[in-house]
């Protein structure tokens, strides 16, 4: 297939009107103009699977019919002579039938086909829509099968084009739902330009899966031991706390009666007794609570990781396409065209980093999915795994003998550290001031204040603990906590300064940043489509700048933060020769010969 560096599909002359190939719009009814039909052979239009409609009908019926029967029975029990009681069942059935009919109409109206040049989709009953994507613009194909769809042998197919989505934000074409065989065939064909669709619309059913297993080299497959990294996040306590907060919230919604009822049934001692019991044995209760929180968090996170990453495999197919498969309940298969994978991110959140784990994400065109969060979820190419393994995977994805993740990185100037110290100092002052105010308030607080606080807390907490512990806390406790905060702030400042770095590989540029989440990004130098340099007043005073490469891939902007201005510009100039050079001057007077401006 095409070479890796080739970014311009041969034989394709695009004029400035980039969106010319893609048409959205409404066609007058009855008139079925079909652009892209220029080939002599007619490719058949295919429909979505009607099975999904019947499936949702069955599910809805399972819920609504019993409800209707119960309604009828109840009405009869209330009043035997009431003939209205016969109504719910037929009404429900009519409703379900109508919904199914409308759904079928919608489904019938949606048709798609893949011609050698383009993928086309028609949809809509009243407002007809026609959408067409040139196949050479297809960047990724995402086949997902959530469990409730998979049991019917169906899947959804999302085709990403990598257009920077304008108004409406639809750079995607989605088919809900097609049969697994159709999905697999679409996945294979859409990214294969050399060998276009052979057009056997209903072939390939069931055969696709097995064949796909061995056409390609496996980059990595799941090692169940990696699930041990799943709970290594700051969320572990948070998840447990979330469960407790949800329970407390529920109790507050019942006006506290929920807990009252439970404690009466179980014969628990009163809230005051329990509260004082706990306060008396804080040294035992506190660690046990923390352990409980930790355990519940671990269970939830491991379960999530197993659901997401079960059966995880990453393949490189013969045509260079990178294919990701994963998922227990929702099985996901994502294919990214090889030359659209412009780099990788070594993603190391703090807790994971401290236990030697990392994960790999893609920097690719055509993976955007509406909002940043979905895009981020879609670009994940690996679960948390040992950092050494993640680096190997990154290197394999970049297809370079010496990985861009291993190039020596340059540190940023000490002034960047000074900026972070300034921020830490400001934060510290705020925290100390807050602590001072709280300690002062505690001094002032009278018995009646505490009573009010406790009553408020008792409103929604079954066992009030917060206000008693606040009352019992010594005045210097606030200051101690604040001092701890100050230490953490400065430690964080040093850590985030150490995280800052940038470097160059023969084919990639590398930037690293972050303390809470450290991301090392490699970006193909040929995919840089511009530079952005920003400087705040503070950065100008310290001789720093944020130098960002703009690209069509991934987040679209990758920044070397707080880099020395000269250092950053030299790096950018070297990374993409000739782009920045005409606009740079060297201080030693040997300024570049200025190019003549094209405009007067």
């Amino acid at each position, binding site marked *: 297939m095409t070479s890796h560096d080739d970014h311009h599909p041969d034989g394709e002359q695009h004029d400035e009107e980039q969106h010319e190939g893609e048409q959205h719009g409404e066609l007058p009814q009855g008139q079925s103009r079909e652009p892209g039909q220029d080939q002599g052979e007619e490719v058949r239009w295919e429909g979505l699977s009607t099975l999904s409609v019947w499936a949702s009908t069955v599910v809805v019926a399972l819920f609504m019919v019993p409800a209707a029967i119960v309604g009828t029975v109840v009405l009869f029990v209330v009043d035997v002579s009431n003939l209205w009681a016969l109504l719910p069942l037929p009404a429900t059935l009519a409703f379900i039938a109508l919904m199914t009919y409308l759904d079928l109409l919608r489904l019938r109206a949606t048709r798609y086909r893949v011609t050698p040049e383009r993928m086309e989709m028609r949809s809509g009953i009243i407002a007809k829509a026609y959408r067409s994507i040139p196949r050479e613009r297809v960047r990724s194909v995402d086949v997902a099968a959530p469990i409730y769809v998979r049991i019917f042998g169906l899947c959804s197919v999302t085709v990403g084009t990598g257009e920077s989505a304008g108004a409406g934000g639809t750079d995607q074409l989605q088919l809900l739902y097609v049969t697994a065989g159709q999905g697999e065939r679409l996945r294979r064909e859409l990214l294969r330009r050399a060998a276009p669709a052979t057009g056997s619309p209903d072939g390939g059913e069931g055969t696709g899966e097995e064949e796909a297993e061995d056409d390609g080299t496996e980059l990595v497959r799941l090692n169940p031991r990696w699930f041990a990294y799943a709970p290594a996040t700051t969320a572990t306590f948070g998840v447990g706390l979330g469960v407790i907060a949800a329970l407390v919230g529920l109790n507050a919604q019942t006006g506290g009666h929920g807990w009252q009822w439970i404690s009466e049934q179980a014969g628990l001692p009163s809230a005051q007794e329990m509260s004082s019991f706990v306060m008396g044995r804080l040294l035992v209760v506190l660690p046990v609570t923390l352990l409980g929180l930790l355990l519940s968090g671990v269970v939830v996170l491991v379960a999530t990781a197993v659901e997401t990453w079960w059966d995880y495999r990453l393949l490189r197919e013969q045509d260079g396409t990178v294919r990701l498969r994963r998922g227990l309940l929702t099985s996901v298969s994502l294919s990214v065209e090889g030359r659209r994978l412009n780099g990788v991110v070594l993603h190391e959140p703090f807790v994971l980093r401290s236990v030697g784990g990392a994960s790999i994400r893609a920097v690719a065109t055509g993976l955007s999915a509406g909002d940043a969060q979905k895009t981020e979820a879609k670009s994940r190419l690996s679960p948390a795994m040992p950092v050494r393994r993640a680096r190997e995977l990154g290197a394999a994805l970049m297809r370079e003998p010496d990985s861009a993740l291993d190039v020596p990185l340059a540190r940023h100037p000490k002034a960047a550290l000074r900026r972070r110290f300034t921020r830490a100092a400001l934060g510290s002052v705020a925290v100390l001031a807050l602590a001072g105010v709280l300690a002062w308030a505690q001094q002032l607080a009278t018995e009646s204040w505490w009573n009010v606080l406790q009553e408020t807390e008792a409103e929604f907490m079954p066992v009030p603990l917060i206000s008693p512990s606040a009352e019992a806390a010594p005045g210097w406790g606030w200051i101690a906590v604040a001092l701890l905060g100050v230490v953490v702030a400065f430690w964080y400042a040093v850590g985030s300064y150490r995280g800052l770095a940038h470097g160059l590989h023969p084919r990639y540029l590398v930037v690293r940043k972050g303390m809470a989440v450290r991301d090392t990004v490699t970006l193909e130098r040929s995919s840089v489509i511009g*530079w952005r340099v920003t400087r705040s007043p503070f950065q100008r005073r310290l001789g720093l700048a944020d130098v960002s490469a703009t690209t069509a891939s991934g987040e679209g902007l990758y920044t070397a933060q707080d880099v020395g201005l000269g250092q950053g510009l030299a790096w950018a100039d070297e990374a993409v020769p000739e782009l920045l050079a005409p606009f740079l001057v060297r201080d030693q007077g040997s300024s570049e010969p200025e190019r003549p401006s094209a405009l007067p």
Partner: protein
Amino acid sequence: MNTDAPRLRPPNHRVDRRAVWWWTTRSLAVTVVLTVVPVVPALIWEPVRPWFLIAAGILGGVGLLITVAMPQWRFRVHRWEITDTAVYTSSGWLWQEWRVAPMSRIQTVDTARGPLQRVFGLSSVTVTTASAAGPIEISGLDHTLATEVADQLTDSTEAIPGDAT
């Protein structure tokens, strides 16, 4: 630091002088609105009147200060240049930004004029690339010049094949 560390030279062309008046008017309008907002409750509600008047005073004062300083500052920073190979702009005042985009990666070129720009005979040229970093905008150009620039950019980008990603 290295003595031969590179610096960015300012782009060749300034924006139109009338842009100063455009920025002044815009800033003044925002200042007036923000000052009037706390004055309304001050007129209606007696007890809090001094507080709201103080807020209005601060907002108005800061707004006027910005209105006086910002346009001149912006005029010194805002510059643009188009070479055969790239578009180069600088903008901002306190926070400043320099942008470079190669001609070969430009997707669309638009001109736009808001109602206020039209009053001063100005236009903006917006140059879009495939990046999510947002378009490059040259604002405050003379209307005829903006049209020329856009036409020239369109011609140059048309000459270059590829899908600009």
